[in-house]
Structure formats: C-alpha cells, structure tokens
C-alpha cells in the first residue's frame, strides 16, 4: 500500500444519504478475481444510461448527464463529499477498490458504515467524519460555479480551504500511523507471532473444542 501523503484535490459532492455498496459497485463486477480495474464501473448504475457488464469498455457507453461524476467541474476529483451512512450494505472491498481506482483518496461524510470505514484504511483511502453543519457548508462551496479544491494533511489532521480556513478532523492513532507509512497490516501482526502462539496454546487447554477441526 502506498503511503498517504498530503495532497490537494477537486471535490465531488454526492448529495445522497445511505449510499450503499451495491450502488458503489454493482454485483456483476464482483465476479472478477482481481483487485484492480473497478474504477470505470464505480457507481455504474447512476453513472451510465445503459446496463454495465464486466469486460465491456466503458469509454463508449452513454453517460447519465445529471450524475455528479459526469459534471465537467468535477473531472479528476480526488475528494468525495457524501451524506450519512455512506458505504452501508455489504462487506465487499470492491467498493473501496473502485473508489480508489477511480482516483478518490478521501471521502468526507457525517457518518460511515462500519465495515466500509474499516475497509478504506486497508486501501489507502481516508474516510473523514465531519459534523452535518460543516458538511452543509462544504456542499454549498462544492456546488458553486467553480469546483472546490481542498488540501488534506493527514499528519496535521487538517483540511485546508482555498480561503485559508482550516478544518481539523479525528483519526485513530493506529490507523493514522499505518496510513502515513503505508504499512501492511499482516506484516505488523506477524511481529507478534509469539503472542499469537502462546494465546493459542493456552486456549487449546481451556477450550479444546475450538481446535478439533
């Protein structure tokens, strides 16, 4: 996983609550055995007018003109603004894969679904929770004639606005550390092989029925 660096990017405002993982990446694309290439099918049913199928070149497909990602202002967006409960539904990691593959690095919403939130950190995506009032303000700015550009600094935990204002955000220490350094979770856990082995040995004595198969 690449280390998460400070960057400046255009903001795409997706003004819907309860955006589910079926909407983020529809089921037919889950048949892939790879973890890349989902970007063109991100929000497939909202983004295109025809029905998307795996393996089809999306560059010639008819676009839904009123969908936010098809708006000229938001081309190349790196930050997604969303409403409550973003990423609800299934555990499919194809959802963060699709967002990341499209080019998003940060998703800002008043709340996220737990599994999706967790999956983001495993894929170099930073989900940021901000209050509904701040979100309303960001939505207003992002829907103006000019696209809004934000600067996200994970180290300092700040979001810089063009007028010089800055918004601070919370992120768990451990997750921040992993994201900043692009650390592989499995590698980290395997530093504790002895602890796992001794837990396992003790548990085998106290609850042998968990080890029969």
């Amino acid at each position, binding site marked *: 996983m690449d280390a998460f660096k400070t960057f400046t990017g255009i903001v795409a405002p997706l003004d*819907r*609550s*309860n955006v*589910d993982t*079926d*909407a983020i990446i*529809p*089921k*037919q694309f*889950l*048949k*892939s*055995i*790879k*973890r890349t290439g989902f970007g063109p099918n991100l929000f497939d*049913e909202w983004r295109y007018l025809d*029905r998307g199928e*795996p*393996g089809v070149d999306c560059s010639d497909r008819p676009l839904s003109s009123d969908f936010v990602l098809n708006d000229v202002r938001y081309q190349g967006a790196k930050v997604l603004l969303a*409403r*409550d*409960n973003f990423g*609800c*539904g*299934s*555990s*499919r*990691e194809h959802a*963060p894969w699709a967002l990341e593959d499209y080019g998003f690095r940060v998703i800002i919403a008043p*709340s*996220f*679904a*737990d*599994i999706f939130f*967790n*999956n983001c950190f*495993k*894929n170099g995506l930073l989900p940021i929770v901000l209050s509904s009032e701040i979100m309303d303000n960001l939505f207003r700015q992002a829907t103006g004639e000019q696209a809004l550009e934000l600067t996200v600094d994970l180290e300092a935990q700040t979001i810089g606005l063009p007028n010089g204002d800055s918004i601070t955000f919370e992120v*768990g*220490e*451990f*997750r921040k550390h992993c994201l900043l350094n692009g650390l592989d*979770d*499995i590698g*980290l*856990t*395997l530093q*504790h092989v002895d*602890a*796992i082995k001794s*837990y*396992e040995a003790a*548990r085998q004595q106290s*609850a*042998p*029925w*968990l*080890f*029969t*198969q």
Partner: protein
Amino acid sequence: MKTLYDKLWEAHVVRSEADGTSLLYIDRHLVHEVTSPQAFEGLRLAGRKPWRTGANLATPDHNVPTHKRDEGITDPVARLQVETLDKNCQEFGITEFEMDDIRQGIVHVVSPEEGATLPGMTLVCGDSHTATHGALGALAFGIGTSEVEHVLATQCLIQKKSKNMLIKLEGKLGQGVDAKDLVLAIIGEIGTAGGTGYAIEFAGEAIRDLSVEGRMTVCNMTIEAGARVGLVAVDDTTVEYVKGRPYAPEGEIWNRAVEAWQDLHSDEGAHFDRVITIDATQIQPQMTWGTSPEMVVPVTGQVPDPAQESDPVKADGMQRALDYMGLEAGTPCSEIRPDVVFIGSCTNSRIEDLRDAAAVAKGRKVAETIKQALVVPGSGLVKQQAEQEGLDKIFIEAGFEWRDPGCSMCLAMNADRLEPGERCASTSNRNFEGRQGAGGRTHLVGPAMAAAAAVTGHFVDVRSL
C-alpha cells in the same frame, strides 16, 4: 459485571495497543468465492501459508446456478471465480463443500448446520451477513478481503471494540408474526444506521421463544441496522441445536464445552451504552416499501408520504425511493402487486422458513399475474430435508420452482435476477436499488408473507388467509 459481547471480546484478545486497538484471535473463518480470490492471491504473492488450515471452511454460494446445475456454470466469469475457489482450497488444504456436495449451500446456513459455528467462538467471513452466527452466542462479523487475507495468514484480526447495545423485546410475538417481522420492525424503529458502532444483543421473551433458526434471521439483519455484530445469549435451545452436529464436540469435551457455555450471557446489571425496549406484542407482519430496509411498514398499512417528513434530506430520500419503486404515497400495501416471488437467502432459507412458506402454499396456486416464484433452499441438506417432508411437492404443485441451494436472487450474481421495473416479494435482506437486478424493485417480507403474496398476487396480511 460484563455483557455477553464484553466476555466474548475479552476471551479473544491476544494483545492491545495503547489506543485500544486489539489483536483478536479468530476461531472460525468461512470462505466463499466472491471475497476470497484476491486474498489467496495476496498470500501467494507474499509466500505465506494459512496459519491454521482447520479453522477455515469454504463453500461456493454467491455465483452458483440454482437450476440445471449438472450442466455447470455457463457464465465464464462466474465459472472462473468458483473454479478459483476450488483451486485455492486444494492448494492450501482448506476443506471445501464444492458445488456438487450435498453439504454445499449459503455459508451462513451451512456452518451452523454442520456445527462448525459454536457458542463462544469468534467467527468471521468476507460477507456482511456473518452476524447471523451471533444467534448461537458466537462473536461473528463480516470483513473485507484484506481482512480475509489477514485472518488466513495470522488467525487474527486488528479490531477496535464496539459499544454495547441491548434491544429488549418484551412480551410474545402474536400469531402469524415471525422473526423476520421482528427484525424488520426493529430496523424500522432504530434506522439503518441506528446500530453503527455497536454490537447489539437481542434479549427478552420474544427472543427466548424463538428457535435458533429464528434467532439467526434476527441476527442476520443486524448489519441492516448498521451493527456488524448481533448476539443472542446461549440457553438450552442453543445447546440442543448444536448437539450431535458433525463438527460439534463429543463425549467429555462436549460436557466441558456445555459447562463453559453456561457463562455466555450478559451479567445481571452489566452496562449497555444504549438500551432499547420494544413491545413485541405490538409487532405486525412487516413489508418494506422503499429502497432501504428502514423504509418499512406493517402490511396492514400504506405507503408513507414524504410530505409528512420534517427532515428535508429524509423526505428527499423517500421521494427518490417512491420514484424508483414506482409507488405513490398513500397506496395501501395490499394493492401492491409483485411480479416475482423469491423465497431464499441467508435470512430465510432454512427448513423452518420453507415449512412456513409451504404451509401457506399448500392447496393453493401461484396467482396468474406472478411471472416467477422461486424457492431456493439454503443448503443441499435443507433441500434434502424439505424433500423428505414433501415440501418440494407442495411448492411445485402450487406453481413454485424448486431450485438448488445458493444465494440466488438475493443479490442476483447468478442467472436469477429481476428485469428492470419488475417488482419482487423477497425473503432476502436488502431492498437497495438494483440489488436483485438493475432496475428491479424489492419488497422485503418473511417467508409466509412471500408465499401469501405469491398465491394472492398482492401483498396481504398472512393472518387473514
């Protein structure tokens, strides 16, 4: 004084970071074809092996055909995914119930049925409906593919503890009201994000009265209320259910296990961060009208009016849902007519669900306006049991199609799907836009209600039949 969740959590912590992030030991890992290929590939690329092969159990379910299975999978992309699971399990020595095995089925049906889900376990799977297994007092939750790889490689997961929520169902459910109605009513009450950040324990008389299968239906949909974990305390019903199953312990170890399981309940006076009390006697048969499981009403009611909603974002969502569903506010539920009926999924495809549906279908005919009525058992063994009881004949005589086990039209990854605009009475768990096929319209109901909609051609209070 600890909650059940506290006890399960503490028994599995290997070590903790200063900020509370913990390394949690995982006793059982269930694997299916959709969320595992990239995880196995990751293992291979890093030169890693599964930490404890025997902790894993695999079966294909999302992509398998439910019809003419002997002809194999015709969709080459789906076939490759199932074959990839077979190959990965062979390469890494993981037990798999392959497509032609009688024990194959939906992972969340198969594992409890085999006794591979035990009280007190931690159990994970790359599927959000893993909460199902909490019905047996197991700490079970869905994970993403990176975590699938992590648990394969280390038998552990890096987790943060959730908060504790208690949902207490007081009193008994009425006649003709089932576990699905109960959980839909709960989601209607707390909303699809009501449980976010919590582990939910379901308790009270109405829960105690449920069979383990009914409890699974409730815990299964915990994720639809936003919570990754749903739990029911262990009691005699749980122990009786587990006893004698193929993977369950035997002899002296069984006795020790049962003794240990006696502690798998929340202590009197344990602290919950949130407590919700619901009067179970007031719950009516439920159906969803919109595109989120919280958009639910009693079947005796009508489609709600966004104009009555004070929150503008919510009202906008309601209007969007009405447009998508092709419904008008104020329409009585009984005037909504499905085109398709689907009885199946990890929520409602166990033997008791099929019995409930068959009891309604018996001696009746699927209405002529219904284009297709599918019954998809949750596993090969459920199918076999149903056939021994003659349920297949009841369904077939009534005009239902009797299929082979799999996830089927719950998420429509295989050939079973809705066409744009088609309306479905479905016993599954999600009514999201496009969930059962692009443009498809889903109404979630329990199995008896789905069968009732099939035979009358419209949604109807099953108690009135």
